[in-house]
């Protein structure tokens, strides 16, 4: 440890209390965006300061923290956030989903099913699902307040008109608890069903946009769609080249300089564990 001493989990207690108040309100109104006074964190913006503030506000000494970026535990971003909380909160860290009590993520929900008591924290760049359709902040607030979500379907209507099906693969809008339309952070649509009636707590923090929202345990989270074009999350028609999984979300990677491509699990923890269980291809 160096000479500078931080408060536990970096933020001061007053700030953490404010964030927790916003989180409680967000949990009480599932899917509703609650404003909060976003603070600077010792990380460049765009690198998940919203998620880090939420993590700092809820982490306790007994927590076990996992941090993933695009499904991987070993990217620079994931490693530095994990080390940061190891240092300022002295908590145990892990790469194993089932060991973690707190999982901060960008882009993925783990393949290992979540269990009651676990908390997911999402780093959100753009919390407003209506932002491309309605530029005015005042108007989007009004649309949410009145549950006027017709324009959300305009986007999906056009996708089907152009491609014959819904091709939206990321940041696919959901209706939470039958009331608020929510942007599930830039997770792949493939992960949306994992939010539906999940036993875990899901907390979303958008630092730049100063918004917090949440999905409490066992809440309905339904992906928007049409009756005759139901939600069908896209996934590569392939098996993981490392562990053979056919039901996980796969990343396409180039493995040599001739452009040969292979598919591997985006969730590195899941993939390693499956191989360790002796089920390689």
């Amino acid at each position: 440890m160096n000479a500078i001493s931080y408060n536990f989990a970096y933020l001061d207690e007053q700030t953490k209390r404010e964030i927790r108040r916003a989180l409680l309100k967000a949990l009480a109104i599932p899917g509703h965006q609650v404003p909060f006074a976003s603070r600077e964190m010792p990380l460049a913006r765009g690198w998940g300061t919203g998620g880090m503030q939420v993590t700092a506000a809820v982490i306790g000494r007994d927590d076990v923290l996992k941090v993933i970026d695009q499904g991987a535990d070993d990217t620079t971003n994931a490693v530095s956030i994990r080390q940061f909380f190891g240092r300022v909160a002295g908590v145990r860290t892990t790469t194993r989903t089932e060991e973690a009590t707190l999982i901060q993520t960008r882009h993925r929900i783990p393949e290992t099913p979540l269990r009651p008591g676990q908390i997911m924290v999402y780093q959100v760049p753009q919390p407003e699902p209506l932002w491309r359709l309605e530029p005015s902040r005042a108007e989007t607030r009004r649309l949410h307040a009145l549950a006027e979500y017709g324009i959300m379907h305009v986007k999906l209507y056009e996708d089907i008109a152009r491609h014959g099906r819904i091709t939206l693969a990321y940041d696919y809008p959901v209706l939470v608890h039958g009331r608020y339309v929510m942007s599930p952070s830039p997770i792949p649509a493939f992960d949306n069903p994992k939010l539906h009636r999940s036993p875990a707590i899901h907390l979303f923090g958008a630092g730049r946009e100063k918004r917090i929202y949440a999905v409490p345990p066992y809440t309905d989270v339904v992906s928007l769609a049409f009756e005759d074009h139901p939600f069908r999350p896209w996934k590569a028609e392939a098996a993981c080249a490392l562990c053979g999984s056919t039901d996980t979300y796969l990343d396409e990677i180039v493995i040599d300089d001739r452009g040969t491509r292979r598919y591997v699990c985006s969730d590195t923890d899941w993939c390693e564990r499956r191989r360790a269980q002796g089920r390689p291809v």
Partner: protein
Amino acid sequence: MTETPLLRVRNLSVRFGALAAVDGVSFDLWSGEVVALVGESGSGKTTLLRSIHGFIPPTAGSILYRSDRFGEVELTHLDEPRRRLLARTEWGFVHQNPRDGLRLSHSAGANVGERLMGAGARHWGTIRAQALAWLDRVEIDPGRIDDLPRTFSGGMQQRLQIARVLVTKPRLVLMDEPTGGLDVSVQARLLDLLRRLVAELGLSVILVTHDLGVARLLAQRILVMQRGRVVEAGLTDQVLDDPQHPYSQLLVSSVLVA
């Protein structure tokens, strides 16, 4: 037969600071009727129309509307959720500039479908079929359904706006100079179309225009506005052929001269 008017406007005023843009206006609109608001530039026509729709809050007066959903409602006191629900189901507003009434970065089909989706339609094929039928009905080639409105001519944009407004079959349609920015030949075609649609759908319309020819063609009654007030009201032919108020006389004679 219904015994009460669809809309009853009473002593309606809209002030902008010291200016009384609309000054104690009263009139009725009956179901299935087209009323034209005429008057020179700045006489308060647009302000009156926008305050009836709820875009601008009136300073004084009352507006009673007979709603399918809610029965008789006082629009100046109606809560916002219900007012907006009426605006996207029972009413329609046609802007003079179609760009104000369209989503320019979304396809023609999406523009027409949006109101259906806003009213709860969730079957893509049905929404698509209705958009195609409405494009045809307003004389736009249905083959253009996936094109952006900015690739349309001014007349086509205006017809698209009309399709977008009428697709949910509103009862009350407010139109602000719908033929205003168009060439004369394009205007004539649009007027024919409007006349046909108003008759087919049995629409009740308040039509702002300063073209008395448009008023004569579409409206059964005329309100003449001057400096925020209605100075003459009556059947279209009466007002145009035998105007009583000096200002109406001036308005009618200036058209004859022009």
